[in-house]
Protein backbone atom coordinates (compact mmCIF):
# COMPACT_ATOMS: atom_id res chain seq x y z
CA UNK A 1 0.00 0.00 0.00
CA UNK A 2 2.86 2.32 0.62
CA UNK A 3 1.19 4.17 3.46
CA UNK A 4 2.51 4.02 7.03
CA UNK A 5 0.23 3.13 9.92
CA UNK A 6 0.29 6.74 11.13
CA UNK A 7 -1.43 7.69 7.86
CA UNK A 8 -3.77 4.72 7.63
CA UNK A 9 -5.44 4.89 11.04
CA UNK A 10 -6.52 8.57 10.79
CA UNK A 11 -7.64 7.90 7.18
CA UNK A 12 -9.70 4.90 8.25
CA UNK A 13 -11.24 6.42 11.39
CA UNK A 14 -12.17 9.70 9.72
CA UNK A 15 -13.47 8.02 6.58
CA UNK A 16 -15.56 5.56 8.55
CA UNK A 17 -17.05 8.31 10.70
CA UNK A 18 -18.12 10.18 7.56
CA UNK A 19 -19.43 6.98 6.01
CA UNK A 20 -21.71 6.31 9.00
CA UNK A 21 -23.11 9.82 8.50
CA UNK A 22 -23.65 9.47 4.74
CA UNK A 23 -25.06 5.97 5.14
CA UNK A 24 -27.59 7.22 7.70
CA UNK A 25 -28.64 10.10 5.44
CA UNK A 26 -29.42 7.62 2.65
CA UNK A 27 -30.96 4.75 4.62
CA UNK A 28 -32.99 7.02 6.90
CA UNK A 29 -33.70 9.40 4.04
CA UNK A 30 -35.60 6.69 2.19
CA UNK A 31 -37.84 6.36 5.27
CA UNK A 32 -38.36 10.13 5.61
CA UNK A 33 -42.08 9.80 4.88
CA UNK A 34 -42.73 6.15 5.71
CA UNK A 35 -41.54 6.51 9.29
CA UNK A 36 -43.58 9.69 9.81
CA UNK A 37 -46.82 8.20 8.52
CA UNK A 38 -48.81 9.06 11.63
CA UNK A 39 -47.73 12.70 11.49
CA UNK A 40 -48.48 12.95 7.76
CA UNK A 41 -52.01 11.70 8.42
CA UNK A 42 -52.49 14.15 11.29
CA UNK A 43 -50.93 17.56 10.64
CA UNK A 44 -50.43 19.60 7.49
CA UNK A 45 -46.75 20.56 7.40
CA UNK A 46 -44.39 20.58 4.40
CA UNK A 47 -42.63 17.27 3.75
CA UNK A 48 -39.25 18.98 4.12
CA UNK A 49 -39.89 19.27 7.87
CA UNK A 50 -39.44 15.50 8.22
CA UNK A 51 -36.21 15.72 6.23
CA UNK A 52 -34.79 18.50 8.41
CA UNK A 53 -35.64 16.39 11.44
CA UNK A 54 -33.54 13.47 10.25
CA UNK A 55 -30.66 15.71 9.11
CA UNK A 56 -30.51 17.37 12.51
CA UNK A 57 -30.64 14.05 14.33
CA UNK A 58 -27.77 12.66 12.27
CA UNK A 59 -25.70 15.81 12.70
CA UNK A 60 -25.93 15.31 16.46
CA UNK A 61 -24.90 11.66 16.06
CA UNK A 62 -21.98 12.79 13.88
CA UNK A 63 -20.95 15.15 16.67
CA UNK A 64 -20.82 12.25 19.13
CA UNK A 65 -18.92 10.04 16.70
CA UNK A 66 -16.37 12.82 16.22
CA UNK A 67 -14.99 12.10 19.71
CA UNK A 68 -13.01 9.17 18.25
CA UNK A 69 -11.70 11.44 15.50
CA UNK A 70 -10.34 13.90 18.07
CA UNK A 71 -8.70 11.05 19.97
CA UNK A 72 -6.98 9.87 16.78
CA UNK A 73 -5.82 13.42 16.02
CA UNK A 74 -4.17 13.60 19.44
CA UNK A 75 -2.74 10.07 19.26
CA UNK A 76 -1.15 10.45 15.82
CA UNK A 77 -0.42 14.14 16.21
CA UNK A 78 -2.26 15.20 13.08
CA UNK A 79 -2.46 18.98 12.81
CA UNK A 80 -5.55 19.77 10.68
CA UNK A 81 -5.21 23.57 10.65
CA UNK A 82 -5.84 25.68 8.63
CA UNK A 83 -7.63 23.42 6.11
CA UNK A 84 -10.16 22.33 8.73
CA UNK A 85 -12.23 25.49 8.14
CA UNK A 86 -13.24 23.92 4.81
CA UNK A 87 -15.26 21.40 6.86
CA UNK A 88 -18.05 23.97 7.12
CA UNK A 89 -18.73 24.44 3.39
CA UNK A 90 -18.20 20.69 2.90
CA UNK A 91 -20.82 19.86 5.54
CA UNK A 92 -23.19 22.43 4.03
CA UNK A 93 -22.87 20.77 0.64
CA UNK A 94 -23.41 17.29 2.11
CA UNK A 95 -26.55 18.47 3.92
CA UNK A 96 -27.82 20.13 0.75
CA UNK A 97 -27.48 16.76 -0.95
CA UNK A 98 -29.02 15.01 2.04
CA UNK A 99 -32.21 17.00 1.47
CA UNK A 100 -32.73 15.98 -2.13
CA UNK A 101 -31.70 12.38 -1.45
CA UNK A 102 -34.30 12.10 1.33
CA UNK A 103 -37.03 13.83 -0.69
CA UNK A 104 -36.43 11.68 -3.76
CA UNK A 105 -35.79 8.31 -2.08
CA UNK A 106 -38.48 9.02 0.51
CA UNK A 107 -41.00 9.70 -2.24
CA UNK A 108 -40.06 6.60 -4.23
CA UNK A 109 -40.03 4.40 -1.14
CA UNK A 110 -43.42 5.58 0.03
CA UNK A 111 -44.95 4.45 -3.27
CA UNK A 112 -42.80 1.38 -4.01
CA UNK A 113 -41.93 -0.06 -0.63
CA UNK A 114 -39.95 -2.98 -2.11
CA UNK A 115 -37.34 -0.63 -3.52
CA UNK A 116 -36.55 0.61 -0.05
CA UNK A 117 -35.41 -2.88 0.92
CA UNK A 118 -32.68 -2.75 -1.73
CA UNK A 119 -31.06 0.43 -0.49
CA UNK A 120 -29.36 -0.94 2.68
CA UNK A 121 -27.89 -3.77 0.59
CA UNK A 122 -26.65 -1.37 -2.05
CA UNK A 123 -25.10 0.77 0.66
CA UNK A 124 -23.25 -2.22 2.14
CA UNK A 125 -21.74 -2.89 -1.27
CA UNK A 126 -20.90 0.79 -1.72
CA UNK A 127 -18.99 0.73 1.56
CA UNK A 128 -16.46 -1.75 0.19
CA UNK A 129 -16.01 -0.14 -3.21
CA UNK A 130 -15.55 3.33 -1.73
CA UNK A 131 -12.03 4.22 -0.56
CA UNK A 132 -12.61 4.06 3.19
CA UNK A 133 -10.76 0.90 4.16
CA UNK A 134 -8.22 1.57 1.40
CA UNK A 135 -6.52 4.58 -0.19
CA UNK A 136 -7.84 5.93 -3.49
CA UNK A 137 -4.36 5.78 -5.03
CA UNK A 138 -4.13 2.02 -4.44
CA UNK A 139 -6.84 1.39 -7.05
CA UNK A 140 -5.07 1.05 -10.36
CA UNK A 141 -6.20 0.26 -13.88
CA UNK A 142 -9.84 -0.62 -14.32
CA UNK A 143 -10.43 -0.53 -10.55
CA UNK A 144 -9.99 3.25 -10.59
CA UNK A 145 -13.57 3.30 -11.88
CA UNK A 146 -14.73 2.61 -8.33
CA UNK A 147 -12.98 5.76 -7.20
CA UNK A 148 -13.71 8.23 -9.96
CA UNK A 149 -17.24 7.10 -10.88
CA UNK A 150 -18.33 6.69 -7.28
CA UNK A 151 -20.33 9.66 -5.94
CA UNK A 152 -19.63 8.59 -2.35
CA UNK A 153 -15.89 9.00 -2.94
CA UNK A 154 -16.34 12.70 -3.65
CA UNK A 155 -18.49 13.36 -0.59
CA UNK A 156 -16.23 11.34 1.70
CA UNK A 157 -13.14 13.10 0.39
CA UNK A 158 -14.85 16.50 0.61
CA UNK A 159 -15.05 16.12 4.37
CA UNK A 160 -12.16 13.77 5.07
CA UNK A 161 -9.41 15.83 3.47
CA UNK A 162 -9.96 19.02 5.51
CA UNK A 163 -10.46 16.97 8.68
CA UNK A 164 -6.97 15.56 8.13
CA UNK A 165 -5.47 18.92 7.26
CA UNK A 166 -5.41 18.70 3.48
CA UNK A 167 -7.53 20.94 1.26
CA UNK A 168 -9.71 18.79 -1.05
CA UNK A 169 -8.78 19.13 -4.72
CA UNK A 170 -10.69 21.31 -7.13
CA UNK A 171 -11.99 18.20 -8.93
CA UNK A 172 -13.61 16.97 -5.71
CA UNK A 173 -15.43 20.27 -5.21
CA UNK A 174 -16.44 20.49 -8.86
CA UNK A 175 -17.90 16.97 -8.97
CA UNK A 176 -19.68 17.36 -5.62
CA UNK A 177 -21.19 20.61 -6.87
CA UNK A 178 -22.20 18.92 -10.12
CA UNK A 179 -23.94 16.08 -8.24
CA UNK A 180 -25.77 18.67 -6.12
CA UNK A 181 -27.06 20.50 -9.19
CA UNK A 182 -28.09 17.33 -11.02
CA UNK A 183 -29.69 15.83 -7.91
CA UNK A 184 -31.78 18.92 -7.21
CA UNK A 185 -32.58 19.22 -10.91
CA UNK A 186 -34.14 15.74 -10.84
CA UNK A 187 -35.75 15.99 -7.41
CA UNK A 188 -37.45 19.39 -7.72
CA UNK A 189 -39.84 18.57 -10.61
CA UNK A 190 -40.45 15.00 -9.35
CA UNK A 191 -41.19 16.11 -5.80
CA UNK A 192 -43.27 19.11 -6.90
CA UNK A 193 -45.44 16.82 -9.00
CA UNK A 194 -45.95 13.94 -6.57
CA UNK A 195 -45.75 15.47 -3.09
CA UNK A 196 -49.54 15.89 -2.86
CA UNK A 197 -49.93 12.12 -3.22
CA UNK A 198 -47.73 11.28 -0.23
CA UNK A 199 -50.63 11.44 2.24
CA UNK A 200 -52.50 8.82 0.17
CA UNK A 201 -49.55 6.45 -0.05
CA UNK A 202 -48.24 6.34 3.51
Amino acid sequence: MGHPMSDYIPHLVTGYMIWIFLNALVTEGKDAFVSNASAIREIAVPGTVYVYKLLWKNLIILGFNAIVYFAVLALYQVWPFPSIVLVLPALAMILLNGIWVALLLGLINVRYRDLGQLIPNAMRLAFFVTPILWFPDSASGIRAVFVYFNPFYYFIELLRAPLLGQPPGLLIWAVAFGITVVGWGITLPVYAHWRRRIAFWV
Partner: protein
Amino acid sequence: MALIKLENITLEFPVHASKSDRKRPSSADKPIGGQLSSGQAGQMVVRALDKLSLTLGPGDRLALLGHNGAGKTTLLRVMARLYPPTHGRVTIQGRVAPLLNLSFGLDMDSTGYDNIFIRGLFLGMSKAELKKKADVIAEFSELGDFLDLPMRTYSSGMRARLAFAISTHVETDILLLDEVVATGDARFLQKANEKLESFARESKLLVLASHSNKVLRDLCNKAVLLEHGRIKAFGDLEEVIETYAASAGVSAKDG
Protein backbone atom coordinates in the same frame (compact mmCIF):
# COMPACT_ATOMS: atom_id res chain seq x y z
CA MET B 1 -62.79 34.13 11.36
CA ALA B 2 -63.53 30.48 10.88
CA LEU B 3 -64.86 29.22 7.59
CA ILE B 4 -64.96 25.87 5.83
CA LYS B 5 -66.26 25.83 2.30
CA LEU B 6 -66.26 22.63 0.30
CA GLU B 7 -67.42 22.88 -3.29
CA ASN B 8 -68.21 19.70 -5.19
CA ILE B 9 -65.46 17.68 -3.53
CA THR B 10 -64.60 14.29 -4.97
CA LEU B 11 -61.80 12.30 -3.43
CA GLU B 12 -60.51 9.07 -4.92
CA PHE B 13 -57.97 6.77 -3.35
CA PRO B 14 -55.92 4.67 -5.71
CA VAL B 15 -55.34 1.24 -4.20
CA HIS B 16 -52.09 -0.06 -5.64
CA ALA B 17 -50.94 -3.64 -5.83
CA SER B 18 -54.33 -5.05 -4.98
CA LYS B 19 -55.93 -7.13 -7.68
CA SER B 20 -58.70 -9.23 -6.30
CA ASP B 21 -59.42 -12.62 -7.85
CA ARG B 22 -62.87 -12.57 -6.41
CA LYS B 23 -65.30 -12.92 -9.29
CA ARG B 24 -68.48 -12.22 -7.35
CA PRO B 25 -69.86 -8.79 -8.29
CA SER B 26 -70.30 -6.71 -5.17
CA SER B 27 -73.88 -5.82 -4.44
CA ALA B 28 -74.87 -2.21 -4.94
CA ASP B 29 -76.69 -1.93 -1.62
CA LYS B 30 -73.81 -3.00 0.61
CA PRO B 31 -73.94 -1.36 4.00
CA ILE B 32 -70.33 -0.28 4.47
CA GLY B 33 -67.40 1.37 2.70
CA GLY B 34 -66.99 3.84 -0.13
CA GLN B 35 -67.61 3.21 -3.82
CA LEU B 36 -65.22 0.87 -5.60
CA SER B 37 -64.42 1.16 -9.25
CA SER B 38 -61.56 0.46 -11.64
CA GLY B 39 -59.08 3.21 -12.49
CA GLN B 40 -57.29 3.86 -15.79
CA ALA B 41 -54.40 1.52 -15.10
CA GLY B 42 -56.71 -1.26 -13.99
CA GLN B 43 -56.07 -0.75 -10.31
CA MET B 44 -58.90 -0.37 -7.85
CA VAL B 45 -60.10 3.10 -6.96
CA VAL B 46 -62.04 3.87 -3.83
CA ARG B 47 -64.22 6.92 -4.16
CA ALA B 48 -64.32 8.01 -0.54
CA LEU B 49 -66.11 11.32 -1.12
CA ASP B 50 -68.47 11.94 -4.00
CA LYS B 51 -69.49 15.44 -5.20
CA LEU B 52 -69.82 16.77 -1.72
CA SER B 53 -70.60 20.42 -1.00
CA LEU B 54 -70.76 21.97 2.43
CA THR B 55 -70.34 25.43 3.95
CA LEU B 56 -69.70 26.01 7.64
CA GLY B 57 -69.30 29.32 9.40
CA PRO B 58 -68.45 30.62 12.88
CA GLY B 59 -70.45 29.02 15.69
CA ASP B 60 -71.29 25.90 13.72
CA ARG B 61 -70.80 22.66 15.58
CA LEU B 62 -71.21 19.94 13.03
CA ALA B 63 -71.81 16.27 13.78
CA LEU B 64 -70.65 13.74 11.20
CA LEU B 65 -72.80 10.63 11.13
CA GLY B 66 -72.55 7.57 8.96
CA HIS B 67 -71.81 3.88 8.77
CA ASN B 68 -68.26 2.48 8.92
CA GLY B 69 -66.32 3.67 5.90
CA ALA B 70 -68.90 6.31 4.97
CA GLY B 71 -66.14 8.91 4.64
CA LYS B 72 -66.23 10.65 8.02
CA THR B 73 -62.50 10.53 8.74
CA THR B 74 -61.64 11.24 5.12
CA LEU B 75 -63.85 14.33 5.23
CA LEU B 76 -62.09 15.47 8.41
CA ARG B 77 -58.73 14.98 6.73
CA VAL B 78 -59.85 17.04 3.74
CA MET B 79 -60.86 19.79 6.18
CA ALA B 80 -57.44 19.48 7.86
CA ARG B 81 -55.87 19.98 4.40
CA LEU B 82 -54.15 16.61 4.59
CA TYR B 83 -55.87 15.14 1.55
CA PRO B 84 -56.08 17.33 -1.53
CA PRO B 85 -59.35 16.44 -3.28
CA THR B 86 -59.29 14.83 -6.72
CA HIS B 87 -61.90 17.32 -7.97
CA GLY B 88 -63.54 20.32 -6.40
CA ARG B 89 -62.38 23.22 -4.29
CA VAL B 90 -61.64 23.55 -0.60
CA THR B 91 -61.57 26.96 1.06
CA ILE B 92 -60.54 27.07 4.68
CA GLN B 93 -60.01 30.23 6.70
CA GLY B 94 -58.59 30.16 10.18
CA ARG B 95 -56.21 27.96 12.09
CA VAL B 96 -57.08 24.27 12.11
CA ALA B 97 -56.32 21.91 14.99
CA PRO B 98 -56.93 18.27 14.15
CA LEU B 99 -57.55 15.76 16.91
CA LEU B 100 -57.88 12.67 14.78
CA ASN B 101 -55.42 10.29 16.36
CA LEU B 102 -55.06 10.41 20.12
CA SER B 103 -51.61 8.85 20.26
CA PHE B 104 -50.10 11.25 17.74
CA GLY B 105 -47.22 13.42 18.92
CA LEU B 106 -46.88 11.67 22.24
CA ASP B 107 -43.56 10.12 23.15
CA MET B 108 -44.06 7.13 25.41
CA ASP B 109 -40.68 7.51 27.13
CA SER B 110 -41.07 11.19 27.98
CA THR B 111 -43.00 12.45 30.96
CA GLY B 112 -46.52 13.75 30.62
CA TYR B 113 -45.27 17.28 31.24
CA ASP B 114 -42.69 16.99 28.42
CA ASN B 115 -45.38 15.64 26.17
CA ILE B 116 -47.43 18.80 26.64
CA PHE B 117 -44.56 20.54 24.86
CA ILE B 118 -43.92 17.83 22.26
CA ARG B 119 -47.53 17.52 21.16
CA GLY B 120 -48.11 21.25 21.53
CA LEU B 121 -45.21 22.03 19.21
CA PHE B 122 -46.48 19.44 16.71
CA LEU B 123 -49.88 21.15 16.74
CA GLY B 124 -48.31 24.49 15.90
CA MET B 125 -47.98 26.25 19.26
CA SER B 126 -44.82 28.17 20.06
CA LYS B 127 -42.56 27.38 22.99
CA ALA B 128 -43.38 30.69 24.71
CA GLU B 129 -47.09 30.06 24.23
CA LEU B 130 -46.73 26.58 25.70
CA LYS B 131 -44.80 27.80 28.72
CA LYS B 132 -47.70 30.07 29.58
CA LYS B 133 -50.29 27.37 29.04
CA ALA B 134 -48.53 24.28 30.39
CA ASP B 135 -49.98 24.72 33.87
CA VAL B 136 -53.51 25.25 32.59
CA ILE B 137 -53.21 22.15 30.44
CA ALA B 138 -51.79 20.15 33.34
CA GLU B 139 -54.62 21.23 35.58
CA PHE B 140 -57.28 20.48 32.98
CA SER B 141 -55.94 16.96 32.50
CA GLU B 142 -56.20 16.37 36.30
CA LEU B 143 -53.25 14.00 36.09
CA GLY B 144 -51.43 15.63 38.99
CA ASP B 145 -48.19 13.89 39.92
CA PHE B 146 -48.59 11.44 37.06
CA LEU B 147 -47.35 14.23 34.78
CA ASP B 148 -43.85 13.57 36.12
CA LEU B 149 -44.00 9.90 35.11
CA PRO B 150 -43.26 8.55 31.63
CA MET B 151 -46.27 8.23 29.34
CA ARG B 152 -45.90 4.46 29.05
CA THR B 153 -47.09 4.13 32.63
CA TYR B 154 -50.41 5.79 31.72
CA SER B 155 -53.66 4.01 31.04
CA SER B 156 -55.33 4.70 27.70
CA GLY B 157 -57.89 6.92 29.43
CA MET B 158 -55.12 8.99 30.99
CA ARG B 159 -53.41 9.36 27.64
CA ALA B 160 -56.68 10.48 26.13
CA ARG B 161 -57.11 13.06 28.89
CA LEU B 162 -53.71 14.56 28.27
CA ALA B 163 -54.00 14.50 24.48
CA PHE B 164 -57.44 16.08 24.66
CA ALA B 165 -56.28 18.70 27.14
CA ILE B 166 -53.41 19.74 24.87
CA SER B 167 -55.44 19.84 21.66
CA THR B 168 -58.27 21.90 23.09
CA HIS B 169 -55.86 24.49 24.48
CA VAL B 170 -54.34 25.18 21.09
CA GLU B 171 -55.27 28.67 19.96
CA THR B 172 -57.34 27.68 17.00
CA ASP B 173 -60.40 28.62 14.98
CA ILE B 174 -61.39 25.19 13.75
CA LEU B 175 -61.28 22.02 15.83
CA LEU B 176 -61.66 18.65 14.12
CA LEU B 177 -62.43 15.69 16.35
CA ASP B 178 -62.66 12.07 15.33
CA GLU B 179 -64.37 9.67 17.71
CA VAL B 180 -62.15 10.72 20.58
CA VAL B 181 -64.33 12.32 23.21
CA ALA B 182 -65.81 8.94 24.02
CA THR B 183 -62.65 7.89 25.87
CA GLY B 184 -62.22 8.98 29.46
CA ASP B 185 -64.54 8.52 32.37
CA ALA B 186 -67.90 10.20 32.93
CA ARG B 187 -66.45 13.10 34.91
CA PHE B 188 -63.84 13.94 32.33
CA LEU B 189 -66.40 13.57 29.58
CA GLN B 190 -68.49 16.26 31.23
CA LYS B 191 -65.47 18.49 31.61
CA ALA B 192 -64.51 17.89 28.01
CA ASN B 193 -68.00 18.77 26.89
CA GLU B 194 -67.92 22.02 28.85
CA LYS B 195 -64.59 22.90 27.28
CA LEU B 196 -65.91 22.18 23.81
CA GLU B 197 -69.10 24.15 24.49
CA SER B 198 -67.12 27.19 25.58
CA PHE B 199 -64.99 26.69 22.51
CA ALA B 200 -68.09 26.75 20.37
CA ARG B 201 -69.53 29.75 22.22
CA GLU B 202 -66.51 31.79 21.20
CA SER B 203 -68.07 31.33 17.76
CA LYS B 204 -65.45 28.97 16.57
CA LEU B 205 -65.98 26.00 14.37
CA LEU B 206 -66.19 22.41 15.54
CA VAL B 207 -66.56 19.26 13.48
CA LEU B 208 -67.03 16.00 15.34
CA ALA B 209 -67.37 12.47 14.01
CA SER B 210 -68.88 10.01 16.44
CA HIS B 211 -71.15 6.99 16.75
CA SER B 212 -72.38 8.13 20.13
CA ASN B 213 -75.66 10.03 19.81
CA LYS B 214 -75.30 11.29 23.36
CA VAL B 215 -71.97 12.96 22.67
CA LEU B 216 -73.32 14.46 19.47
CA ARG B 217 -76.45 15.77 21.18
CA ASP B 218 -74.36 17.39 23.90
CA LEU B 219 -72.01 19.18 21.56
CA CYS B 220 -73.45 19.75 18.13
CA ASN B 221 -76.12 21.93 16.60
CA LYS B 222 -75.95 20.69 13.02
CA ALA B 223 -75.39 17.32 11.45
CA VAL B 224 -74.43 15.67 8.21
CA LEU B 225 -75.28 12.08 7.38
CA LEU B 226 -72.81 10.48 5.02
CA GLU B 227 -73.50 7.38 2.99
CA HIS B 228 -70.89 5.95 0.60
CA GLY B 229 -69.18 9.34 0.48
CA ARG B 230 -72.32 11.30 -0.39
CA ILE B 231 -74.34 13.64 1.79
CA LYS B 232 -77.62 11.89 2.51
CA ALA B 233 -78.99 14.42 4.97
CA PHE B 234 -77.88 17.80 6.22
CA GLY B 235 -79.52 20.06 8.77
CA ASP B 236 -80.92 19.93 12.28
CA LEU B 237 -79.17 17.39 14.50
CA GLU B 238 -82.30 15.58 15.74
CA GLU B 239 -83.73 15.15 12.26
CA VAL B 240 -80.50 13.76 10.90
CA ILE B 241 -80.15 11.35 13.83
CA GLU B 242 -83.71 10.17 13.12
CA THR B 243 -82.93 9.68 9.44
CA TYR B 244 -79.78 7.76 10.27
CA ALA B 245 -81.59 5.57 12.80
CA ALA B 246 -84.38 4.87 10.32
CA SER B 247 -81.95 3.87 7.58
CA ALA B 248 -79.94 1.70 9.96
CA GLY B 249 -83.05 0.18 11.49
CA VAL B 250 -82.25 0.99 15.11
CA SER B 251 -83.77 3.25 17.72
CA ALA B 252 -82.41 6.79 17.97
CA LYS B 253 -83.11 7.09 21.69
CA ASP B 254 -79.90 5.72 23.10
CA GLY B 255 -76.33 4.82 22.16
